[in-house]
């Protein structure tokens, strides 16, 4: 067995992947596109938190909120200025891929390319006998749980949640009965990309920050929703957990070979269940 710390690291990574993946699932369900810039929104979220704390001096939770709100606004601009003017899922995909370089380049120019780190935002540890867990890590897990609960309640018990599920399943009928699909798309884009930013922000104090940190979480959360089932939030949870633990626990044993294991697992799951583990519509 790997030491407890490795499992906890796996859980922390899972949390970031899951929060990112929720956003991708929501955006995919309503807009029908994979947003390839999701990873850069994650990176921008980390920077917002970094500067909120170091330059502006506001508390961590407020910085996190600011990351979500600012990036949500940015993503709505991206949708209005770029995505809405391009037809065809393939071309939209290519355009959002192009934005990867735009945001990474812009971040390099504005923030610089060197690594930054946030020291001890939430200092202290909880001693659990044979090992201890920092408050920072507990915050990541609690935050992710809260996000899950909020999303669950929103989707299942609110009017907008009903509209989101209905539109994901049958957009024509939803609009016939009064859902403004255009407005809903904007809202969902904001929520989805805001979640990516908060995923980056919540784990920012644990890792180094630079303009290129978005790539790996993007790939991992994409794989998570592909094996979980495009469109399924439960699938995103399971997929996120599998990948987070693979990345830490298997890596502990196999080092770089773990990535081979990871991709083999993805291929096997898709061969057995091409629709992913949990099928294909928001539920």
């Amino acid at each position, binding site marked *: 067995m790997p030491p407890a710390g490795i499992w906890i690291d796996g859980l922390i990574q899972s949390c970031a992947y899951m929060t990112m993946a929720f956003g991708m699932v929501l955006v995919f369900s309503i807009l029908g596109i994979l947003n390839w810039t999701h990873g850069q929104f994650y990176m921008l979220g980390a920077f917002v938190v970094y500067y909120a704390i170091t330059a502006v001096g506001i508390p961590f939770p407020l910085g996190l909120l600011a990351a979500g709100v600012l990036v949500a606004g940015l993503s709505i601009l991206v949708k209005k200025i770029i995505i809405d003017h391009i037809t065809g899922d393939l071309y939209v995909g290519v355009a959002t891929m192009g934005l990867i370089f735009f945001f990474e380049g812009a971040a390099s120019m504005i923030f610089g390319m060197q690594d930054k780190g946030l020291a001890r935002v939430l200092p202290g540890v909880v001693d659990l006998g044979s090992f201890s867990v920092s408050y920072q890590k507990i915050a990541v897990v609690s935050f992710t749980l809260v996000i899950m609960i909020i999303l669950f309640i929103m989707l299942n018990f609110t*009017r907008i949640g*009903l*509209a989101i*599920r*209905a539109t994901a*399943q*049958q957009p*024509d*009928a*939803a*609009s*016939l*009965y*009064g*859902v*403004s699909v255009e407005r809903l798309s904007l809202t969902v884009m904001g929520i989805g990309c805001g979640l990516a930013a908060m995923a980056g922000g919540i784990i920012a104090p644990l890792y180094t920050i630079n303009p290129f940190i978005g790539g790996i979480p993007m790939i991992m959360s994409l794989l998570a929703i592909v094996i979980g089932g495009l469109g399924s939030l439960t699938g995103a949870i399971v997929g996120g957990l599998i990948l987070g633990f693979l990345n830490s626990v298997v890596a502990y044993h196999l080092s770089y070979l773990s990535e081979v294991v990871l991709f083999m697992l993805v291929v096997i799951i898709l061969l057995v269940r091409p629709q992913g583990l949990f099928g294909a*519509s*928001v*539920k």
Partner: protein
Amino acid sequence: MLELKNLWVRYGKKAAVRRLSLSVNKGDFVTILGANGAGKSTTLNAISGLVKVKKGQGEIVFKGEKINGLKPGKIAARGLIQIPEGRKLFPLLTVKENLMMGAYLRKDRKGVQHSMDRALTLFPDLKDKLNADGRELSGGQQQMLAIARGLMAEPELLMLDEPSLGLSPLLRQLLAERIKEIHREGVTLILVEQNARLGLMLASYGYVLENGELALQGKTSDLMLDENVKKAYLGV
């Protein structure tokens, strides 16, 4: 109540509906007949705002106001409701949630509850299935749910696009009874049918579309006796 004036609807360059004019008065029961691809669904979708009618391509007037150009939700909010071809239920929403989606625009809780009771009285089969997912219903039940969902929107004018599609003769009979009942309760109806016999039997006035154009119109009692209609649509 509803008037189409010289309407053209195009998909790209191809015109699917050409110079179509028709009118429906309050309380009418009108049927639109035509073969596959005649432009019936296109007409309904243009009325509902799902398909855009471009500038200068005719007018759609509902209750005295021009509605072409409005979003589907705005049109639905005025009481002009479509029950689309192929049911278009929300497969992973429960029956109850499907019904609630029909009432999505309504704020009056009491009124919504009243509509729900009324819909379930009309289609009692749905009562035991309220918590089942839409996709778990039989074909007949799905069609009933599609109609019940439409009624939840409190329609003044209800357009049904081929509700009999895929139903057994027995279920078709039941459906016909229910549609008559909805009309008796005061809802103005437009029934689109490929099954001309059903459309002519239920409605009092009919329009026949051929290749996107109006080929014939008249009282259904007259259309039933028309030689061309008999040959082309009734198979006699």
